[in-house]
């Protein structure tokens, strides 16, 4: 459609794009690749644990795998996959043409990716980090291995990307809403993304500070954590969990948001108790910050602190319970279509309850002296992360796939995927509760025979094979659907859904909305279907549309940050091939040079002329 600007090569187009929809798809692809990588590591670890005293992996390799599995899954898989949906969906759901700062959005993606690649580079320099994803000092100060240097700098870089993306979402949601889209008419997914972005703002900053301290101690021999020099090892745990506990909510709140979109759509009912859902989200986020020390009940912070943090933690069950029952009563009395998206979204509810109730059990501090650092905890947080976040991601994938890729995923394969995954998931993690109570600590690469741990470990490993098979079916589904899937080109609203993103044409034009829509209610598209003619009323006449130019600078700045990080790591290498400072200088030049170019060169973007917009409208059969 675009004869008004120069045609570019496909690769160049994707490298320079600042379009939130393309960036959403890029997040989806990058996140999926990291997800597969970390999933494969999990399978290897479960194979090692299939029988006692197995020697498939060594203790060192196993520790590298647990560390990378956790780090990748949280920072480089779950976060970007949620960002994929946020990027794609938020502007569409609030009736915006793009995010507030498209350039910053692209920068966020590329920086996240370069941080992820920096972390992965560790495999080529003696192995991954090996101190667990929490990197507790003093274990993480072990100088023999470079892995943790990659951890510290990789996360630092990718964290910058996450932070700036979060700020962008905040500004977008506050500033870019279409006329009539008041805060209390925001779809729940936008609300949860908004609260999540606030959490990122306040949680990733302490993480950045903590990682800076760890970097100074590892690379520049500071002594923050050395008790012999007056340091304190427990401080790291406080800093880490002040980030780490909200991180759970950073991931799970948007998952709640996805569930709150999918369940109403396929129940054909509006969300039950919308206002309560919004405030429950905020209360969960607030409490999420207040309870970090429940990860530290066994650290010896004293009975008063333990009691306070225990009670605060249990309190989170109340707003979460409100959400659970509101979802149940959204479905109650509905006309439910159980397609794959809805299977995942509805099964999320009881599965998440199983993870939630063990959370309350864990919060009883003196009983946690038993659970802490055992497989009971492993079972609990996988019920939250896989049973919560991953199920929601799959629901979101099947739900928004037609809008993102202009075809549906195959439903039959989808159901097979759901069945295999559900069986595998419960088989893997349900028995782990008992393993923990029976005396199996977490993060052990082996266990002795004859300690009563053999059978459940075997069952758990078999479960992972089911989950692996399920993921293979998903990959087959994606490939098959790309070739033979049901096309939805020209079908704007394949699910008969309720929210604004389904009012845009498929494929979505680069400007999203030819005319900014006028929002008259919660669930705006549904409102128009019942009270109007089924299309959104425009809030403005057809006119030229101002769009931002693409730019290669985000890629250049990110490459610069990669080399900045890598150069600092080279300071720790025994025999670096070039002077580390040369690499640092090169990285700094690319990063700050890129920033300077962005600042000094005016870029006013371009206009899509009215005539082109009108032609598009005519072709797509809309326009008033």
């Amino acid at each position: 459609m675009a004869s008004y600007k120069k045609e570019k090569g496909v690769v160049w187009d994707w490298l320079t794009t600042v379009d939130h929809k393309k960036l959403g798809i890029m997040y989806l692809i990058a996140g999926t690749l990291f997800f597969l990588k970390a999933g494969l590591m999990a399978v290897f670890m479960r194979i090692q644990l299939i029988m006692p005293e197995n020697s498939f992996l060594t203790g060192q390799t196993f520790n590298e795998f647990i560390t990378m599995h956790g780090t990748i899954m949280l920072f480089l898989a779950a976060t970007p996959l949620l960002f994929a949906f946020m990027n794609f969906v938020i502007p569409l759901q609030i009736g915006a043409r793009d995010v507030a700062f498209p350039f910053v959005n692209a920068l966020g993606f590329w920086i996240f990716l370069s941080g992820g690649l920096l972390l992965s580079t560790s495999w080529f320099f003696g192995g991954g980090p090996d101190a667990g994803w929490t990197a507790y000092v003093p274990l993480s100060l072990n100088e023999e291995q470079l892995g943790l240097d990659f951890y510290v700098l990789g996360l630092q870089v990718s964290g910058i990307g996450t932070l700036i993306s979060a700020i962008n979402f905040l500004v977008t949601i506050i500033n870019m809403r279409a006329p009539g889209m008041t805060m209390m008419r925001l779809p729940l997914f936008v609300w949860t993304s908004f609260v999540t972005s606030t959490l990122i703002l306040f949680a990733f900053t302490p993480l950045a500070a903590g990682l800076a301290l760890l970097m100074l101690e590892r690379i520049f021999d500071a002594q923050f954590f050395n008790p012999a020099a007056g340091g304190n090892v427990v401080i790291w745990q406080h800093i880490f969990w002040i980030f780490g506990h909200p991180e759970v909510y950073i991931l799970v709140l948007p998952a709640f948001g996805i569930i709150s979109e999918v369940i109403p759509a396929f129940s054909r009912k509006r969300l039950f108790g919308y206002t309560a859902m919004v405030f429950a989200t905020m209360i969960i986020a607030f409490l999420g910050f207040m309870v970090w020390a429940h990860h530290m009940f066994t650290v010896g912070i004293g009975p008063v602190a333990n009691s306070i943090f225990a009670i605060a933690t249990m309190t989170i069950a109340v707003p979460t319970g409100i959400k659970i029952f509101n979802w149940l009563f959204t479905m109650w009395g509905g006309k439910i279509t159980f397609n794959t998206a809805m299977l995942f979204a509805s099964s999320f509810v009881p599965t998440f309850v199983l993870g939630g109730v063990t959370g309350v059990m864990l919060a009883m501090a003196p009983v946690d002296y038993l659970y802490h650092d055992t497989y009971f905890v492993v079972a609990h947080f996988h019920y939250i992360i896989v049973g919560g976040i991953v199920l929601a991601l799959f629901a979101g994938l099947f739900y928004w796939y037609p809008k993102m890729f202009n075809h549906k995923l195959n439903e039959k394969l989808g159901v097979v995927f759901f069945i295999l995954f559900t069986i595998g998931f419960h088989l893997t993690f349900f028995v782990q509760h008992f393993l923990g109570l029976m005396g199996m600590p977490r993060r052990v690469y082996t266990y002795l025979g004859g300690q009563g741990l053999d059978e459940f470990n075997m069952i758990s490993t078999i479960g992972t094979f089911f989950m692996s098979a399920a993921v293979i079916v998903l990959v087959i589904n994606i490939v098959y659907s790309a070739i033979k899937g049901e096309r939805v080109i020209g079908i704007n609203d394949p699910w008969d859904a309720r929210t604004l993103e389904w009012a845009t044409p498929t494929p979505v034009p680069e400007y999203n909305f030819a005319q900014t829509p006028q929002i008259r209610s919660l669930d705006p598209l549904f409102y128009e279907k019942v009270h109007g003619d089924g299309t959104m009323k425009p809030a403005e006449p057809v006119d030229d549309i101002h769009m931002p130019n693409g730019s290669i600078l985000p890629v250049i700045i990110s490459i610069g940050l990669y080399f900045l990080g890598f150069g600092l790591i080279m300071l720790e290498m025994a025999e670096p091939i070039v002077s580390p400072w040369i690499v640092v200088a090169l990285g700094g030049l690319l990063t700050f040079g890129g920033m300077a170019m962005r600042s000094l060169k005016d870029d006013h973007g371009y206009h899509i002329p009215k005539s082109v917009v009108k032609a598009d409208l005519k072709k797509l059969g809309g326009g008033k």
Partner: protein
Amino acid sequence: MLKNLLWRLTPAALVLVFLSGCLGEENLTALDPKGEAAQWIYDNMILSLVIMTLVSVIVFAIFFIIVVKFRRKEGDDELPKQVHGNTAMEITWTVIPVLLLIILFIPTVTGTFEFHVDADPAEHEDAVYINVTGHQYWWQFDYEEGFTAGQEVYIPVGERVVFELNAEDVIHSFWVPALGGKIDNIPGVSNALWLQAEEPGVYLGKCAELCGPSHALMDFKVIALERDEYDQWVDDMLAVEAEETAANAEAGYEVFQENACINCHAIGGEGMATGPTLTNFGDRQKFAGVYDIDDDEELANWIRNPEELKQGNNMPPHDISDDDMEDLIAYLRSLQVRPADADY
């Protein structure tokens, strides 16, 4: 429908397997508590489990009704009633959880204070007070009487024994599941916890905090003896002197000296304790925490190449000939303080 029902029953079937007595190994599992602390934890775990099962059952029941009752029939395009919410219901499912949580608050607070002990010997003059130091990857137990034991800690039955917890290198966590909860051993911080064993026996302990490549192999034992036997054992440990032990296996003692083992492994009051003390090595059930003490070949492997059996540990390899090894092992085995007819 039948298929549906089958997967819904899978978790229930697993619970049945569990209830049919699959509680894990005796003296390891926390599901068969053997001491006061473990019993308290178990009872309160059951309390929370009952409440939480109740909650889960309610959610599952509602969910099951929804799945059965509210499916959309083929061709049914009628729009269900759009309800915005129901304040009375929402208040109900806010208040009930609050009430349930209040039931759990009480034991949470009382238990937290009950389990807290100060890491100060002066506060525990009447109790047995043992200083535990975690090392990569072994445990050191210093008794108030002035001797040191490694890997196996002896305690009297029926008394609250206070353990002071310290760490030498990285964070470890001292855990005896059958006897109670765990508290971390942290460099630069002294923590404490009390445990009590109701009956004599050998209880399995583990390190619960990731401490390096051989974290999984950092096992230890708690051996609970009747009070008089315990006192006898303390006296025996105090009486050991390195030279006297040599009388039993003199050739092995020479190998021990030649290889400077004493530089790391103390016997009696002599020598350094950078490695586990060997005073009562012959009494142990396992060496290096996890390997069978009766296995000569494994023990020889261990001395020749410790890295292979316990990756990342601090013991250097020793090049010792077969004959010398035989003597050395005989010597190590002779290091016993408990009578041969002891019933454990």
